[in-house]
């Protein structure tokens, strides 16, 4: 079996986001970037399935500027076999990303595509589901447990009400939640080895798919700030404030 895992380069989750004064977006210059956190879970799960012997090959793909290659290198350093970098210097919406991934899937013919459930920059939560629809494959989103069978995969999904278990036929798209596993760190020898693993280079606009954006970003602004509150001296004062000032209890 073969897995394609999609990884995205985003602003590191520990970075405090700063909105640009002109409303055109957020500051990205000299900001620490890293792999989208649930994409690390997707890579980890793919590599674990390979280590279990059920999967023969793990291919990591990213779409983005030159530096996005770092996310593929990182996936290679934790156990993916080879990489694909689809170059694009501009932001592409999930719909366009899904179309590009579909092209890659048609060429690579994986049995499963693993992705993070959501990217922490645009917070769209669309790409995996869109890709599944375009391929006419089943999907399992928000996965927190993956059990691979011969011709299907059983998935425990994190839903608002609790947990849901579904079984989907292969090939399938799986989007990963943060509790699926504990992503490993790459060891130095593996980082060195990853430098020798091949990364295919493609260019997004040469793939013959319509990746024009349909949603125009008019402005980006800071959310309204909360006014500074007060510190209370003790529990009695807290209860009194809640009762008499805020009137919420």
């Amino acid at each position, binding site marked *: 079996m073969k897995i394609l895992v999609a990884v995205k380069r985003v*602003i590191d989750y520990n970075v405090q*986001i700063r909105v640009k004064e002109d409303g055109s977006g*957020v500051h990205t210059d000299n900001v620490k970037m890293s792999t989208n956190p649930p994409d690390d879970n997707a890579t980890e799960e793919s590599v674990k399935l390979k280590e279990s012997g059920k999967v023969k090959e793990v291919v990591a793909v990213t779409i983005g500027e030159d530096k996005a290659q770092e996310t593929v290198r990182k996936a290679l350093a934790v156990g993916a076999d080879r990489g694909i970098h689809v170059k694009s210097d501009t932001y592409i*919406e*999930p*719909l*366009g990303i899904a179309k590009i991934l579909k092209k890659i899937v048609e060429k690579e013919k994986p049995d499963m595509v693993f992705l993070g459930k959501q990217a*922490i920059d645009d*917070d*769209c*939560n*669309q*790409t995996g*589901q*869109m890709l*599944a*629809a375009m391929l*006419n494959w*089943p*999907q399992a*989103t*928000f996965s927190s447990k993956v059990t691979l069978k011969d011709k299907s995969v*059983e998935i425990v*999904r*994190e*839903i*608002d*009400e*609790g*947990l*849901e*278990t*579904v*079984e*989907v*036929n292969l090939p399938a798209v799986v989007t990963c939640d943060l*509790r699926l596993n504990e992503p490993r760190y790459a060891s130095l020898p593996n980082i060195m080895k990853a430098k020798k693993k091949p990364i295919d280079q493609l260019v997004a606009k040469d793939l013959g798919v319509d990746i024009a954006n*349909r*949603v*125009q*970003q*008019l*402005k*980006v*602004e*800071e*959310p309204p700030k*909360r006014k500074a*509150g007060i*510190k*209370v001296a003790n*529990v*009695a004062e*807290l*209860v009194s*404030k*809640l009762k008499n000032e*805020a009137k*919420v*209890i």
Partner: protein
Amino acid sequence: MSVLLIAEHNNKNLKPFTLNAITAASKIDAEVHVLVAGSGSENVAKEVAAVPSVKKVLHCDSPNYQNYLPENLAPLVTKHSEKYDHIVASANTFGKNFMPRVAAALDISQVSDVIKVNGPDTFVRPIYAGNAFATVKSNDKKRCVTIRPTSFEPAPKIGGSAQIEKAEAVDVPNFSKFIKREETKSERPELGTARIVVSGGRGLESGENFKLITDIADKLNAAVGASRAAVDAGYISNDHQVGQTGKVVVPDLYIAVGISGAIQHLAGMKESKIIVAINKDGEAPIFSIADYGLEADLFKALPEFLSELNKLNTIQK
């Protein structure tokens, strides 16, 4: 111009967040039609028909729609979307699961997690875990939109009498199977809609100590929340998690206990009307957004809090 909204339900009753999505849909266009797809779901169709802002109910009943598998639901929505300019659902795990499949089938770039409707094509949505708000304009002819339910008031439930029309089912692909759903049962109000939420973090130090939280919650008729750290440490199940990767809550009162206030947690609760933080670390970031901060050892403060609450003659319900 009209909106097709997809109802979330459990085949018996409408889920409350659908009412919030109906409010948002009415701001897009007054002609709101609701699709109820389920199995043995007649009562849900009746409930939706009674919502005054709903103009028509499309009801499709088939065992194929019992568990809202996205592979089955999306083709149905796609088929019935023809006459509509907008397709709308809640941005919770129900809407997030199937809506992008509909958008892809229609070649539409979806607008996710809308918190404000500026017009039929212009919306405000949070990005970067709510650290920025983007105003976006959809240039697609038809639009797929998911709504953050807690950003809109629920629509009134009774007084309407919309027509219920049978909607034709479509073929299903038969490549996915529902196995089971383990819903967390609770006597307390639901986290997403509760008026008061009491949340615990890693500061609780163990699952047993969460009793300090649940005692307060029961006294206040509140829901119980948790930080990701507390969930990951195994103190409490994941459906209690508040934050970017959990639930977004907007209660009248949010009490954060032993929670330092990581960005990921704040994203899930910082729109709450009143925020209380109880933490022994006076420098914890949670204090910077709290209306009332109490710098104290929670193991002393919580029993005291409970006894102070017990002294009150009345507590709002």
